[in-house]
């Protein structure tokens, strides 16, 4: 993988998108996307945690013995998640409550561990920080698109503001579990088809 900042941005947002190419961290993708505000908070938290975990891991990578690096990484991640959790509780109690256990579950989001292992472990701090941010953004974009459709069709609202006329009957299925799977599946289908076309065009 090339490590110029703009190439990283492109990779993490599209060619190597954590969600639809690597299929990482989709638990929360599915769980929090029935409401745009929740999704926004969740993804911003994830960008924060990924970026700072990458930075920290990269800074202290020479100090960690290889054998225990997984547990050290997990502790670093948990440390930043606790910060996020405390901040959310203090400033956005309503959203913190409706996200429930999913904020804590950022710890086991494989994107973070994956990036720390695959990138921060072998690269200098600043570029690792950038890699964390862009990976988080790649996650954010996909989640926001899915949340947009789920909230619009499921409740007829966007960011809790009604946008569709009252004559519109909400599709209750959109706020329930199965629709998340269908939407993500279709999203992956579209993205993959476009990617295959691009590859075909290059040859």
């Amino acid at each position, binding site marked *: 993988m090339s490590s110029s900042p703009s190439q990283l941005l492109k990779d993490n947002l599209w060619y190597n998108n954590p969600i639809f190419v690597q299929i990482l961290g*989709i638990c929360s993708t599915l*769980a929090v996307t029935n409401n745009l505000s929740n999704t926004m908070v969740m993804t911003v938290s994830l960008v924060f945690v990924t970026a700072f975990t990458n930075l920290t891991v990269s800074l202290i990578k020479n100090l960690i013995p290889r054998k225990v690096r997984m547990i050290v990484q997990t502790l670093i991640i948990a440390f930043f998640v606790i910060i996020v959790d405390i901040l959310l509780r203090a400033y956005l109690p309503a959203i913190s409550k409706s996200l429930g256990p999913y904020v804590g*579950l950022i*710890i086991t989001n494989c994107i973070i561990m994956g990036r720390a292992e695959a990138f921060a472990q072998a690269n200098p701090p600043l570029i690792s920080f950038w890699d964390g941010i862009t990976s988080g953004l790649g996650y954010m974009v996909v989640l926001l698109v899915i949340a947009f459709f789920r909230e619009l069709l499921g409740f007829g609202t966007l960011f809790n503001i009604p946008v569709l006329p009252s004559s519109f009957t909400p599709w209750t299925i959109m706020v329930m579990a199965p629709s998340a799977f269908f939407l993500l*599946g*279709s999203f992956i289908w579209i993205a993959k088809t476009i990617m295959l076309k691009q590859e075909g065009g290059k040859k």
Partner: protein
Amino acid sequence: MSPDINPLVLLFASIFTSNILLANFLGMCSFISISKDIKSANGLGMAVTVVLTITAAINWAVLRFILLPLDLLYLRYIVFIIVIAATVQMLEMVIDRLSPALYMNLGIFLPLITVNCAILGVALFIEIRSYSFVQSVVYGLGSGLGWWLAIMALAAIQKKLEKAPVPTGLKGPGITLITIGFMAMAFMGFSGMLSVQ
């Protein structure tokens, strides 16, 4: 302050109506990557069930006897994840000693369980819903069994899908996710019976 739910009802609910995977979306990563082969799916399902039951009990005790009395609730993420990692490690050693054959079978799956979010998820649900000890263990066991059931069903479906004419772009994760969507709908059929909160 534990909610008044009959353990048997909770067991049934956590397997079917509130399936940890299909209703709460937990443990998806390994669910999608391991479900291509029935034998591995079975091994992983078994391992997840055992670890979930044990960690549900330990994490309940840690929460009730250490974190709450000392007012250290904010440390719960770190403590839970350490308990889970330690349990997995310990289980690995015990299984290796008692049954090398089973150890060989589970081998690669055991360490993977540490990062399975279903395990941490169950611990956090237990905390949020303030379950009693019996309820916690039953909830852990039921969630494990539900996860096991779901991954076996998906592995069986995937076997058939291999031969199906799926469009190239949809092959792999795309069709898998849509299949899981249908499974989730099927499981939702149970939800009129009872629910846990």
